[in-house]
């Protein structure tokens, strides 16, 4: 779905990043409490992120931000818009 949106709107999402890729958060969407939690964990607009890897079964993913590692599901990562870092 993320890929479709990307083609449609030209936006990139955290969920579609490949391991090693870097980016910068531009927008965090999703349900209020999830969005607030993600932002409190440091995923605020303007934050640099790097995709590290996906779990063995492909989901969740591990990212690096603000000098720590965070894991989140692809469904949450699909709500985080990024631009090339």
């Amino acid at each position, binding site marked *: 779905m993320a890929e479709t949106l990307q083609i449609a709107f030209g936006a990139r999402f955290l969920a579609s990043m490949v391991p090693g890729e870097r980016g910068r958060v531009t927008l*965090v969407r999703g*349900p*209020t*409490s*999830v*969005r*607030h*939690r*993600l*932002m*409190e*964990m*440091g995923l*605020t*607009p303007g*934050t640099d992120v*790097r995709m590290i*890897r996906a*779990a*063995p*079964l*492909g*989901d*969740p993913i*591990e990212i690096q931000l*603000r*000098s*720590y*590692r*965070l*894991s*989140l*599901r692809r*469904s*949450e990562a699909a709500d985080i818009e990024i631009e090339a870092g």
Partner: protein
Amino acid sequence: MSRALVVGAAPPALMRIAIAGNPNSGKTTVFNALTGLRMKVANYPGVTVERREGRMRGADAALLDLPGIYSLSARSPDEVIARDVLIGHLEDSPLPSAVLVIVDASNLERNLFLATQVVELGLPTVMALTMMDRVRARGRTIDCALLSARLGVPVVPVVGTTGEGIAALRDALAHVGPQGSRGIERMMPPSLEEAIDEAAEHFRSNGAFGGVRPRALAALWLAERLSDGDSTKGPAGQRAAARWGPTNEKLLATSARLAGALPDAPAAAIEARYRYIARLTEGVISPPASGDPAAAPPDLTDRIDRVLTHRVGGPVVFAAVMFGLFLSIFSGAEPLMDAIEGGQRFVAATVAAALPEGALQSLINDGMIAGVGAVIIFFPQICILFFLLAILEDTGYMARAAFIMDRLMSRVGLHGKSFIPLLSSYACAIPGILATRTIEDRRDRLTTILVAPLMSCSARLPVYLIVIAAVFGDRPMLKSAVLFGMYAFGTVSALTMAYLFKRSLLAGPRPTFIMELPPYRVPRVAGLIRATWHRSKSFLTEAGTVIFAACIVIWALSYFPGPPAMAAAVSSARGEAAGVDAGQPLAVEALAGSERLRSSFLGKLGRLIEPVIEPLGFDWRIGVGLLSSFAAREVFVSTMGITFAVGEADETSPELRHRLASATWPDGSRVLTPLTGIGLMVFYVLACQCVSTLAVVRKETGSWKWPALMFGYMTVLAYFASLAVHQIGLRFHLGA
């Protein structure tokens, strides 16, 4: 202002210092280093968030280790507790006289999110920067003096594992004074600052929060109010009203105005705080020695994770770790459990020799000693499990386990963090349920709790073993297959029920999985032992009392009112015994016991329910076993021993096996056929026959609603599954 009063008053005899910090920030290591070995572990009233308190060495101060949290916004039970302690609004917990806030220096920005919130409360505060060794290893330095000057609180660098800086920290805590009068930096957008000012007026006049800055209270209140939509109604509204006191029109108007002026004010506040943190830390951390952090070689954690979360290697290592965990719980505890059983038999024999036969001897032996035994028999397993869980937790592997398993668990609507509690439940549902505390989402946690007792615990094993031995005789392959089948059946049932609960009763918004993957570290043995002991001890005191009480009740039900006439019973026993076993005195005694049970309340109950359980293929004697198992499943074997007049019995007793196998209905057909055996085991797989589990669930969920639901659905499930096995089996002539 009331804070001035607190500060100006004569120093209290005992300082009370609350320790706040992020999970994985080294908070517990600092707590342990400051307190030494003395500490008290309890639960906060009404919830089972661990309350750890200790006395600071060399100072008159009590240290309260708050649960690790990421924010004061209070979305999880842990956060609510920590926040309420820090604003002095928790039952039995007066406002702390000082706060120690722990900040992981290697992860400064995110740790400062909580830390700045805590500093802003305005209590006398000391900040400890932990993991300084890791910062140095990255070739960086931190200017603590600069950070301290900017924050207005002392900042002490420490390395918890080596004790470096602990003396300085102790000194800073002993001399901590009120914060400067500069107040909170106005970091928020103007409309939010304005709303905070207005709301602060309200809290300034509210005496309940003396000692905490009204502006900080205002910010917390607005964040809570604007995050939850309409939080004034329902239980959430009641809790909010209890915490924040009555709201008035003016306060509500303020929040409404803010909601209009700044859509999603809480998000704006979070962004503003991170911008503030960027200003705070500018020039505080030296740039990395190598320039670009990406150019630095991957650190140890990275190298370990390349194996442990590898597509192939990850699951392999994970399976090995889980197998090892399972194996140690099962076999590691065995010698100790045997020793406990031996000790129990010895004590019972001593009592039997010292006391005349009768109600008192029976109460002590069959009630009290059996009751104590039923509690401590689990103790070795629980200690081992808690120790291993502490290792997984402290090394950082627990987070990887959740990372690896989340995909599978999400298929049934659960969380990666549900895996360990469910796995632990193979040993015993109680530690499994206690291990669900790490699950933030209430629905995910309740679902995990509700299905955990379906995982076949070690108390079911003796039942499986005796029944399998009785009905499948000497066919080892078949026996193993049936045993494995029971475990598999329990697991599938648990996952299926989780799926159903998540789609009905506990359906909620899309489940989330947002979890930090902390760096790997070598656990401290002292910390592991401490955590193991205190958690295991709380099992003894909390669940133990209920199990003990239940054993006494079951004893009384099975002992009273006693046979109509003891003499008649013994003579009838003798008569029967003559036909059975050449009138050995032991057999006579056993038969007298059987007769007593038959005429007891429990025996009467067994016969009362016989019509209900007959369609399942069970007679009243098995009914008695089922009923007594509701205290604890393993009682089944000893009750069967009494019911079938074998006397002392355990699952290896050949005689009990034989008696069970040869028991007949009045018409002469066998009671325990392979079919009824399977039906009986299916019942045990599914039924919630464990008072202790229910007691723990009551404690964990804070209401009888959930244990009642658990008991209800599991009993219904057990009955109908067992009924289906028997009736379908009969239809296909598998009864013989």
